[in-house]
């Protein structure tokens, strides 16, 4: 229909440029239209009584002016200028997705069979009539093939980006006029990156895509992603975030199971949201003892499910054997100190050293590693303080710290990436003189300017905020509902302190309602600060959660252990090794990155960094990481994991003979899983690819038009052609419609 009315295919209009072939200048056209419209207006105005009213005159004027404009425009000979490929001088690359997902059966045939049928039933011949056609199989690599019989749909992964990049590279020496891609769009090797896209656009090669596969399955559950921390402390409560979507099972309740090497870690019943909606579910589990966790999350196959291979996801997580240390400085003997101490004594994954001011001139130290440690009190050197991962500042006056120590505390969070927790107390927060730099920067609250903010022996009931209900710090029970109930059962705090107002970006996890007041005071506030994090717990009275709860209730211990784990989790060691991909799904390239710092946590750009990798079948390899030019103290390398299996990489950083530090990570390569995911046709990707390169997306039943559309391209060997527009049927129809409309209106008004 479009082509009947407009004479040419829509591609001509989308790619061509409008030109006026008439020799008269364009300004004359504009002037003629204006003058003509004015003359018509004057004539109609003079005879307005003939139409009956001003409104009717205006309508008549508009219709006549439009007709005049159309006539004048045609006199200037409008046309489209468009580049077309020279027949038989250009190459059209036909890429057929040969990955396993193309073997999925739909409506009685596989996607690949549908694609070959589309090619063999006329498309390939139509293309060969006009161009030289090169046929490729696109799987893990791009391979040229002679005919469609070579396609097997067995490649373990689709790398559309790499395939397109290769064809774009070939176009440097060959006249590639267009690319035709037949695929389900199930790209699972990281997407089509910007470099590939820009390379194709640079060569101005249009990519026409033909999509195969159902755009939406009728019954399928797909686990899209499982986010877990790459590292955690032993016996930590860990939150895994599962993203999934489904079709055909909305409202159904299913059980999600998380396992470590076959051993169940957690189960959770969830209810599916609406079809096609991506939903996120948190799964809490205990990290267990130190070692590598091979996590597998799964949902049992459901009735009539079309693809059950995407109901399972795996991840690798390191459970760290190290015991982070927290330094707790307390300005007076008090019950909070005693009971925090006892709570952390129960935690075998944390160590706490304490400095307690027992008298004006004496300190008492506990949890020290050597008799000399902290013997002079609070550390004065960065390397001494930065040996800890967390710092708690209790009821101790701000001015007990020297200005240099105060600056060190700030650097502890900012540069070293440690966690600092401020407790409420007689000498805490505003009452302790913390309303001064650098503490005002460091605190997650704007402290009140007045003193007497600490209310000793004044009961206050603690209650979780909505953020607190989601936080791992305050999670006493894995079940969110039971967790809230447990908090409601906890006895009141023995005292409370007004910490002021939370800063922007800070998170209030707990509020307290003081006795005799309807006011709610922020009590537990956290924020990220520099490379680290800071928090305020504005009370010294949580010890009642231990003394007032029955023996065996572990609420107090669990809260404090989780509080301190939050404080130290993320406090980096001096050497941090990381990789963005701990699970290589049908991939082998492992980017390794090590951040190296010295004892004062300054970037050690002059370090020598070596990684030792142990892998399957006795693989034992040493590689050197190279310093990054962009980031001082960062060392990188790309390594190829040769076989599927688990790998362990330990990196050691040295400066001369001095070892700066070491770190270990694990990763795993798994083959043959990527194609089980995203099996629905990714039409969005194919459409985007076509739109960005000047091509078009086609359904298989529209592919017949493709051969003629391919003709219009600016790539390869082209000629510019002009196509007249004046003789389009739509022009005559439009002219007829204008005149006819006027005639009908006049008849209606009775003014003919």
């Amino acid at each position, binding site marked *: 229909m479009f082509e009947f009315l407009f004479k040419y295919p829509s591609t001509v209009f989308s790619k061509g440029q409008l030109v006026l072939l008439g020799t008269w200048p364009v300004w004359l056209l504009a002037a003629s239209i204006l003058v003509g419209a004015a003359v018509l207006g004057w004539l109609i105005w003079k005879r307005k009584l003939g139409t009956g009213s001003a409104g009717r005159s205006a309508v008549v004027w508009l219709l006549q002016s439009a007709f005049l404009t159309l006539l004048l425009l045609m006199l200037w000979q409008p046309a489209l200028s468009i580049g077309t490929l020279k027949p038989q001088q250009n190459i059209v690359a036909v890429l057929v997705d040969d990955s396993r997902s193309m073997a999925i059966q739909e409506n009685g045939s596989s996607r690949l069979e549908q694609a070959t049928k589309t090619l063999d039933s006329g498309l390939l011949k139509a293309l060969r009539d006009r161009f030289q056609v090169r046929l490729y199989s696109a799987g893990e690599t791009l391979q040229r093939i002679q005919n469609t019989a070579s396609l097997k749909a067995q490649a373990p992964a689709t790398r559309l980006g790499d395939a397109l990049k290769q064809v774009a590279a070939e176009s440097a020496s060959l006249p590639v006029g267009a690319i035709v891609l037949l695929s389900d769009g199930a790209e699972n090797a990281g997407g089509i990156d910007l470099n590939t896209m820009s390379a194709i656009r640079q060569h101005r090669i249009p990519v026409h895509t033909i999509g195969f596969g159902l755009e939406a399955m009728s019954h399928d559950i797909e686990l899209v992603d499982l986010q877990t921390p790459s590292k955690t402390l032993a016996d930590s409560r860990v939150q895994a975030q599962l993203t999934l979507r489904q079709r055909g099972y909305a409202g159904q309740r299913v059980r999600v199971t998380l396992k470590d090497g076959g051993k169940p870690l957690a189960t959770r019943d969830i209810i599916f949201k609406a079809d096609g909606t991506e939903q996120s579910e948190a799964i809490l589990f205990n990290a267990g003892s130190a070692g590598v966790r091979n996590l597998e999350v799964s949902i049992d196959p459901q009735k009539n499910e079309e693809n059950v291979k995407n109901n399972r996801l795996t991840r690798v997580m390191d459970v760290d054997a190290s015991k982070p240390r927290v330094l707790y400085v307390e300005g007076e*003997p008090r*019950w909070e100190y005693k009971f925090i101490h006892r709570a952390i004594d129960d935690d075998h994954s944390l160590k706490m050293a304490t400095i307690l001011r027992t008298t004006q001139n004496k300190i008492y130290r506990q949890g020290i590693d050597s008799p000399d440690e902290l013997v002079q009190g609070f550390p004065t050197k960065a390397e001494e303080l930065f040996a800890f991962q967390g710092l708690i500042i209790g009821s101790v006056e701000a001015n007990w710290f020297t200005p240099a120590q105060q600056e060190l505390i700030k650097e502890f969070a900012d540069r070293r990436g440690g966690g600092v927790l401020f407790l409420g107390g007689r000498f805490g927060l505003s009452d302790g003189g913390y309303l001064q730099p650098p503490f005002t920067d460091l605190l997650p609250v704007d402290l009140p300017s007045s003193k007497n903010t600490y209310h000793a022996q004044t009961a206050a009931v603690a209650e979780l905020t909505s953020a607190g209900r989601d936080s791992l710090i305050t999670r006493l029970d894995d079940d969110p509902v039971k967790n809230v109930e447990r908090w409601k059962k906890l006895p*009141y705090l023995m005292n409370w302190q007004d910490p002021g107002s939370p800063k922007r970006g800070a998170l209030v996890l707990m509020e307290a309602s003081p006795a005799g007041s*309807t006011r709610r005071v922020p009590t537990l506030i956290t924020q990220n600060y520099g490379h680290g994090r800071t928090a305020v717990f504005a009370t010294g009275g949580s010890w*009642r959660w231990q003394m007032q709860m029955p023996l065996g209730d572990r609420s107090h211990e669990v809260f404090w252990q989780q509080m301190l784990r939050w404080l130290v989790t993320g406090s980096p060691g001096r050497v941090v090794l990381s990789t963005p991909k701990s699970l290589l799904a049908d991939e082998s390239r492992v980017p390794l990155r090590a951040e190296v710092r010295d004892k004062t946590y300054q970037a050690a750009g002059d370090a020598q960094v070596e990684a030792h990798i142990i892998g399957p079948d006795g693989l034992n390899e040493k590689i050197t990481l190279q310093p990054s030019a962009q980031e001082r103290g960062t060392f990188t390398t790309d390594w190829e994991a040769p076989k599927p299996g688990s790998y362990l990489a330990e990196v050691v950083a040295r400066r001369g003979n001095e070892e700066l530090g070491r770190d270990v990570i694990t990763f795993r390569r798994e083959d043959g899983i990527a194609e089980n995911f995203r099996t629905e046709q990714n039409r969005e990707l194919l459409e985007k690819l076509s739109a960005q390169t000047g091509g078009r997306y086609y359904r298989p039943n529209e592919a017949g038009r493709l051969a003629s559309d391919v003709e219009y391209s600016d790539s390869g060997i082209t000629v510019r052609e002009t196509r007249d527009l004046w003789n389009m049927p739509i022009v005559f129809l439009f002219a007829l419609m204008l005149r006819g409309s006027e005639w009908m209106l006049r008849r209606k008004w009775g003014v003919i």
Partner: protein
Amino acid sequence: MRPRIVVSIALLILSLLGTIYAQKPFREYPGAEYENFPLPPDWRENAEFSRARLMYPSISRGWGRYQSWTIDYPRSDRHLLAGIRRLTRIHTRSVEQPVSLDDPDEVFNWPFLYGVEVGHWDLTDAQCQKLREFLLRGGFLMVDDFHGTQEWEIFMAGMSRVFPDRPVVDLDNKDPIFHVLYDLDERFQVPGAQWFETGRIYEKDGIEPRWRGIYDDKGRIMVAICHNMDLGDAWEWSDDPRYPEKWASLAYRIAVNYTIYDMTH
């Protein structure tokens, strides 16, 4: 009335009830030796610490006027607490807090409990159970002023019902309780006020002073037992020129160490 107002009033009432059922306010009882002992100026202070004095039924006199839990009360408590206030950074008021184990949850608000003349106590089963719960949750009990074999057996009759399964052991000199603030390697017997009249530093057959204790599963002292000594009298008479300074001084130092030990372990 609007629901919001109703909720606010309910919250206010609940908060007030919370205060009422919170830690009980200071209260004085008639003592065996003192009545109308003057209150120190800080008696109303909302302090972090006060030492709870254990109220218990005695073996012979029951809950009568001359109950043994009130021996030295309140003079010794107030002298000692003023000393702790002066010598340490513990924020304490200078008045004690008498606490009964029959009060449902009150003892759990006072993690340091002091029992005097426990050679006369006669705890009920419910009190034993409450005391056991208190100690295992993290409370600390210091007992003092009982002498000789007979009073030891009476004390143990009660304590073995509190902890049938935990041994009483002599405290080692190296234990942190003797070093947490003062180094107390050199300890000696501290006599009570009977010394004014008898000139003897021991009572009954309690010739040898014993510093004993009961530990929890983590090696922390839960019960500190001062047998064959009268630290209570030493605090009580520390302002009397007749009472030798060295005994008073050691009694204070032991009490300070025990208090700080409790607040750190």
